[in-house]
């Protein structure tokens, strides 16, 4: 190893090489997305159709929205296993209130309109996120354990709220509107000038997440806590407050994803986003964020979510059986992370 520090800028070819390497590592996920898309366009005539692309966007948008909150959490070195459950409980609570009539202290309430329902969904999601953050920081237990616990707790509460039935269902919505508000369905299944609304929502959330991470003090704290907890602590950053903030935001964002998902299916149920707990984590990791925190960002996670959506869609179009799809998706996650680790080691060794 060279012990003398490099004085001044390196030789020009070195610098160009290094810049190129950094660029490739940054846009690696984009390259993967494009290559996979190119392959599928050639392999099957059904892939590159407007309808199909819109479909991929709608599917991937849910994961993409969830992965923004997940990215914030993972960047601090945490993990939120409960995002799917939070999405389901938030959307289900709102859906029940938006489709049924209640008597509260003798006053008949409901069904609520969309705006109030959305607000309630967000409030429920934020409350769940707050619970996660407080359990981790007050209970002094690992993020993994805390959110593993709340994962099933939130599912249980959602099952109680919905009575274990889809909302709306023909059993619970007999007297009133049998449907969710049209605005909610528009969010999940509608489009603006051919672009799926769900995709627009996802992009907006990603942009907000990017702005937060780059320009706000909280964003800096997130990277510092994940990059070196001890350094962050001695510099005066409150680790607990940063953690509570990211879990709170993750819950809030998950609620929005839940509303979009319920809108897409025109129905909500307590267990609807079970796969998303892990899919959102996979999207973050595929997007190049370090699972141990400190490195990465939300744009990568958006790409990661779309890679997974594209992959699932492509395998369907290629008539790969659902059994094999699971194997392929698992392999992709493992290979991406192996490659990512290898790249990081090379980058560190090069210095």
């Amino acid at each position, binding site marked *: 190893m060279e012990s003398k520090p490099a004085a001044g800028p390196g030789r020009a070819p070195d610098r160009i090489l290094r810049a190129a390497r950094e660029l490739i590592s940054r846009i690696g996920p984009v390259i993967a997305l494009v290559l996979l898309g190119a392959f599928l366009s050639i392999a099957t005539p059904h892939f590159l159709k407007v309808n199909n692309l819109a479909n991929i966007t709608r599917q991937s948008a849910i994961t993409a929205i969830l992965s923004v909150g997940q990215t914030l959490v993972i960047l601090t070195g945490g993990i939120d296993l409960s995002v799917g459950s939070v999405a389901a409980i938030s959307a289900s609570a709102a859906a029940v209130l938006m489709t049924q009539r209640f008597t509260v202290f003798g006053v008949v309430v409901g069904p609520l309109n969309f705006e109030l329902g959305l607000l309630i969904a967000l409030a429920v999601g934020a409350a769940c996120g707050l619970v996660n953050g407080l359990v981790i920081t007050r209970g002094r237990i690992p993020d993994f354990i805390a959110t593993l616990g709340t994962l099933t707790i939130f599912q249980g509460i959602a099952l109680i709220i919905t009575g274990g039935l889809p909302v709306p269902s023909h059993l619970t919505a007999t007297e009133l509107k049998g449907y969710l508000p049209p605005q909610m369905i528009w969010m999940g299944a509608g489009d603006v000038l051919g672009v799926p609304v769900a995709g627009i929502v996802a992009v907006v959330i990603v942009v907000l997440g990017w702005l937060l991470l780059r320009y706000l*003090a909280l964003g800096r704290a997130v*990277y510092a806590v994940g990059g070196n907890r001890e350094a962050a602590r001695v510099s005066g950053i409150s680790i607990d407050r940063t953690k509570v903030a990211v879990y709170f935001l993750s819950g809030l964002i998950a609620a929005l994803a839940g509303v979009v998902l319920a809108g897409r299916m025109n129905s909500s149920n307590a267990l609807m986003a079970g796969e998303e707990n892990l899919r959102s984590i996979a999207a973050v990791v595929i997007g190049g964020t370090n699972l141990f925190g400190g490195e990465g960002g939300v744009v990568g996670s958006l790409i990661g979510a779309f890679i997974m959506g594209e992959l699932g869609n492509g395998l369907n179009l290629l008539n790969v059986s659902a059994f094999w799809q699971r194997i392929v998706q698992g392999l992709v996650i493992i290979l991406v992370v192996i490659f990512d680790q290898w790249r990081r080691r090379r980058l560190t060794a090069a210095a």
Partner: protein
Amino acid sequence: MSLVPVLSIPPNVTLAKVSQLAMHRRLGLRSESQMASEYVRSLSIHTPSLNRAVMFLSGGNQQKVVLARWLFSGARIVIFDEPTRGIDVGAKAEVFALMNQLAGRKAAIVMISSEMPEVLAMADRILVMKAGRVSAEFAAGEATQEKLLRAAS
């Protein structure tokens, strides 16, 4: 080392100040990198670019980034725990110059060191610790290596 290795120089330098901001407050990214490049110049931190992650810097340069943070933070009391451990001779001299600079700005410095020549050269007041207790106190002029060693053993 209290650096965030994957972050570049500017965020590492401003960390102690940024931590005092409310979460929703904006960072001044432009003034941050201007300020950081001033420190890079005045502390002669050797780096190919401001945006290199600090983990790629040498030990002495990393130490200087930490110093820049506390210079910038406006801290009144700074504790240096073995500030010259694992850095080369040239960087040591620079670290000492910086400590003097800090002291000149009315900051109180507590330096912890087991290198006696360093202690004798830097300190205004020397406390010798022995088995967890202060065993002797000397003013700058009156201490010698022998006296320190006797008080410590």
